[in-house]
């Protein structure tokens, strides 16, 4: 009888102890917990330091994608209208975020390290159409010293179909 009451009091004591402890909640929209370095969030299409796009439109990411979420349509670069240092560039680059499983295979497949899964995890949309992220949404801003694409360059500088991994200049 008294043992039972002691047990009940013990239970009450535990809840009271927790009442005086601060809550563990993170106030999400105001406070965001940092993610791990290797977290795979939304993709970003990277640029070189001079502003040229890394993506050369090779479609290897689309081929590697197990969920068939990536669509790439390539077009030829010219020296008057140069997007990437390679022979071609991605004229259309779309990722369907409803299909994407964030496995990172596209990142592994990319020969120029153009596509990287970064730390943005706030991907929500109201309809299926807005789940398709286009190139404008995925590409990063032009670096400080770079020029926006398309760039006008001198002929004979960019001659390789697949450029060097690091800055070509």
């Amino acid at each position, binding site marked *: 009888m008294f043992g039972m009451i002691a047990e*009940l009091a013990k*239970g*009450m004591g*535990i*809840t*009271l102890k*927790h*009442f005086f*402890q601060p*809550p*563990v*909640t993170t*106030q999400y929209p105001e406070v965001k917990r940092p993610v791990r370095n290797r977290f795979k969030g939304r993709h970003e299409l990277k640029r070189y330091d001079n502003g040229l796009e890394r993506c050369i439109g090779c479609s290897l990411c689309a081929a590697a994608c197990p969920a068939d979420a990536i669509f790439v349509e390539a077009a030829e670069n010219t020296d008057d209208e140069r997007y990437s240092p390679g022979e071609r560039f991605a004229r259309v680059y779309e990722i369907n975020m409803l299909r994407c499983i964030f496995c990172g295979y596209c990142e592994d497949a990319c020969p120029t390290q153009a596509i990287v899964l970064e730390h943005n995890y706030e991907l929500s949309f109201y309809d299926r159409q807005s789940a398709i992220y286009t190139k404008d949404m995925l590409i990063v801003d032009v670096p400080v010293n770079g020029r926006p694409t398309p760039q006008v360059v001198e002929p004979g500088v960019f001659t390789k179909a697949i450029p060097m991994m690091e800055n070509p200049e």
Partner: protein
Amino acid sequence: MTFGQIALWGLVVGFVMSMVIITGFAYTTLLERKVLARMQARVGPNRAGYIPLPGRGGQEKKLLAGFLQPAADAVKLFFKEDPTPGKADKVVYNIAPMLAVIPAILILAVIPWAGKIPGLVPEQYSYFAIVPGLNVAVLFVLAVTSISVYGVVLAGWASNSKYAVLGGIRASAQMISYELAMSLSVLVPVMIANSMDLGVIVEAQRGGWIVFLQPVAAVIFCIAALAELQRAPFDLLEAEQELSAGFNVEYAGMRFGMFFMAEYMKMVSLSAIAATLFFGGYRGPFVDQVPVLGFVYLFVKIFIGLFLMIWIRATFPRLRYDQLMLFGWKRLLPISVINFMIVAVFIVLAQEGVFAPITRLFGF
């Protein structure tokens, strides 16, 4: 004062007190959600309304975050669609929420809120209540708490839903079982004060609260009141895992809100009754000099009662149905009967002067 003046006074006081209590009910829900959240290491509702305070580093501190949550809840409930099930008994379905709320408010009519405040209380009464001087106040409380089971049972029946009717049947069985123990424990302060008038019971605790004289009765009353309220750990009629929501499963909008309101107002009123019967009611230090302090003391006692109920809800798991019935009939009822008889015998012996040599020995 004439009869008409007293009636008018009662009407005005009743209206004002009802408004106060309905606001209090709204904030009881917020209190419950906040306290429960903190006991579960959460924050609780903190979005609707806050008082901005300048804090360190340019960031403003949010004081009382979420204090408008009851208003937001009320607005939401009023604007929700309120469908009636096709095969429901329309009349009873509509009456049931009112039958649940009205007794919950009615109980508060007889509670003495403060002592004799000059100018606020008619001169023939000795304390402030909506209905002061009711000489069967305890009986009234017991009767009204029993009526409130009709709201629950009829809601369950009229919904024409199996879950609802099971919840309603559970409610009636539970309330009948625990009412016996509750009435018997309520009779103890009645016998000690020798009156059924709650004001007289409060005044009888001038020397000391009845809980010190009769802790058994107080504990039984608190347990039985929890069961009467159908709150955790006795909330079998709304056992989510078994009955989805119990008797109110078919209700939505403000009619659901009224059941909610009934539960929380009964929490307030039964806390007030417990405070009045066992914990000295509005009495406290300096209450004879400043009668208005009675409101404060009773409020504090009600608050402690509410906190205790929420605390119990946060701690204990729900009883099984057979455990509930066994505890009510085989433990609580015999203990309260024996306790009742012991108190009766002691009172008679005291009146016969049997204890006179002992009290003289201790110098009373």
